[in-house]
């Protein structure tokens, strides 16, 4: 079991009148090598869930075991290490650093791993080749289209060879054709053995995954094969 979260709550302003239960007792298990779509309306808690799965946030209650490690007990520093080595993030807004060119952006997580420049350049260029962005490796984000930026972001996510790729509405800001291309890349990464978690509000995009988890009001309301959930 790669991901195992049990009875996870994320509660804001707990005990106050304005209390919000973003996650309200969520259980989710993901095996290594799976491609899982998490689908839900805006406000269903899917982004909160992704933040917790990606170790960007910690649950108010509940346990999260990642590859055998109980993440809720880890220090800031250990969490940073997990984000760096085990998880590759792809965000809706790309989140590239504007002052750095494509290759420098891709190298950033490798820098934080302490990898030397030569090996770093090679790994970054391999990742850029993988998303077909090698030719534009010296372009800055402002010099690229949305689809190109997202491909660079994917390259950054896969450059460290993480166990899990987490994509939060990766096609949300793209036109449908570019979006499809990005999805194809995610699927090809999956075919090469990566575990992919895709978060979306779009049924048709979610439906490209074999397994779908549907969230509503912070609860898992459906979890199973595409055919069952979409039915």
């Amino acid at each position: 079991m790669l991901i195992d979260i049990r009875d996870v709550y994320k509660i804001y302003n707990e005990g106050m009148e304005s209390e919000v239960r973003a996650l309200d007792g969520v259980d989710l298990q993901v095996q290594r090598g799976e491609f899982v779509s998490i689908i839900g309306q805006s406000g269903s808690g899917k982004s909160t869930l992704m933040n917790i799965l990606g170790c960007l946030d910690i649950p108010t209650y509940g346990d999260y075991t990642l590859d055998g490690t109980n993440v809720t007990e880890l220090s800031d520093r250990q969490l940073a290490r997990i984000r760096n080595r085990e998880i590759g993030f792809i965000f809706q807004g790309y989140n590239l650093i504007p002052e750095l060119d494509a290759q420098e952006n891709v190298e950033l997580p490798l820098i934080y791993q302490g990898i030397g420049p030569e090996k770093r350049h090679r790994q970054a260029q391999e990742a850029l080749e993988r998303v077909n962005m090698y030719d534009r490796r010296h372009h800055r984000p402002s010099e690229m289209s949305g689809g190109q930026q997202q491909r660079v972001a994917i390259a950054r996510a896969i450059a460290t060879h993480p166990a899990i790729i987490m994509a939060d509405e990766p096609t949300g800001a793209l036109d449908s054709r570019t979006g499809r291309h990005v999805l194809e890349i995610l699927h090809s990464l999956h075919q090469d053995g990566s575990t992919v978690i895709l978060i979306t509000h779009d049924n048709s995009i979610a439906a490209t995954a074999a397994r779908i988890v549907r969230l509503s009001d912070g609860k898992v309301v459906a979890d199973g094969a595409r055919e069952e959930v979409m039915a």
Partner: protein
Amino acid sequence: MKIGQALKMALKSLSTKKGRSFLTMLGIIIGIAAVIALVTYAQGQNLAMKALYDSQGSNVLEVYAYSYSFNGEDDVGQRLYDYCLGLEDVVGVTPSGYLNSEPTITYGAKSLTRQRNYISMAGAAVISESVSGNDDDHYPNIQLGNDKFGLCNNYQIAKGRELSYLEVENMAQVCVLGSDTAEYLFSLADPIDKTININGMPFRVVGVYQSKSAGVNVGTDEENQWVVDSIKYQDKLVLLPSTMTRYFNGNQPIDQYLVKVKTKSAVNDVVTKLNGYLSGIVNTNSGWFNVSNPNEYSAELDKEDAMQAVFLGIIAAISLLVAGIGIMNIMLVTVTERTREIGIRKAIGAERRSIIVQFLIEAAMICSIGGLLGIAVGYVAAAVLTKVFFGLVIMPDVGITILAFGISVALGILFGLYPALKASALQPVEALRAD
């Protein structure tokens, strides 16, 4: 993350915002440049003052001694003179006397007089000195001395020679002139062996001293201007044999002597000996004596320098504090502005420490680049200031330079620390939400 990489990253971040980086540096540049230039200017001033005091003759004691019980040939001065000649550390001793009257000096058509006018102002008598002669700036400074007068007062002979021992002994009618007096009376002619008249009495010129005031510069400090004036006054010298006091001062003995000591370290010893000797021969009921110690004065001077250094240090500290707060301000703005970047960096695995190091290095880099520029500006400013005010280029002290640079880097780290800690404490989720 390695330090080399962090340095590269910081440099990149600064170079993408050159304008703002430079404005942030400006405070540091001005602060450091001002510190270096001011300290060097002060050093130049102290140097100039020291040189000036030395030019007046270093290690010279002023001795006053007078006793009513002595008179005529057997005055206290003669005994003091004889005693000093027996001291091993004394290289010269001369009477240092003035005329009680204000005689007129003439040579051909030119004359020099110094007159004291008594002006009554609102019932109070005020003494003002005015000068008559062809020019307000020319008046004589008549002094009585011996063959060692030049040595003790640090005069150098330009033409001719000093008074001789025998001329002094024999009350010879000879004189040595200061450069200003010689120039006024003789213009371009050679004064040697010419005869001037003092109150109608002829005196043969045997020597002319070099100018003391040429090239003297003590900066803009008004407080030091009197030093320049007093040096110019020395160039108006007319030196007569000390024995002439019998003629001009009605046989009144000279009560002031200058004693030149071989080395600074011997000064205190000679002062003690002179005090001991004088207390033996001067009865304080009917006379008095005083021996000045130039070491005490130079210690006083050193103390003033130290106080000036402290004062400058405080000004420098305040200006650098202001610069530091400016840096902290900018770094705080930078943190806010770059919250999203910090979030991204954290999401892809930057540890707290990496973020702290990144911001600290940026702040330290701003300050060290600013410090280097400040040092460059300070060197130029110091060179210009000292050239203009003291006529020689004084380079800033290496220690001061290193200290200034160290301070600017320390400022960067000190005032960068709070923004860096603030940046590192951001939660990645919160930071990513910012825009």
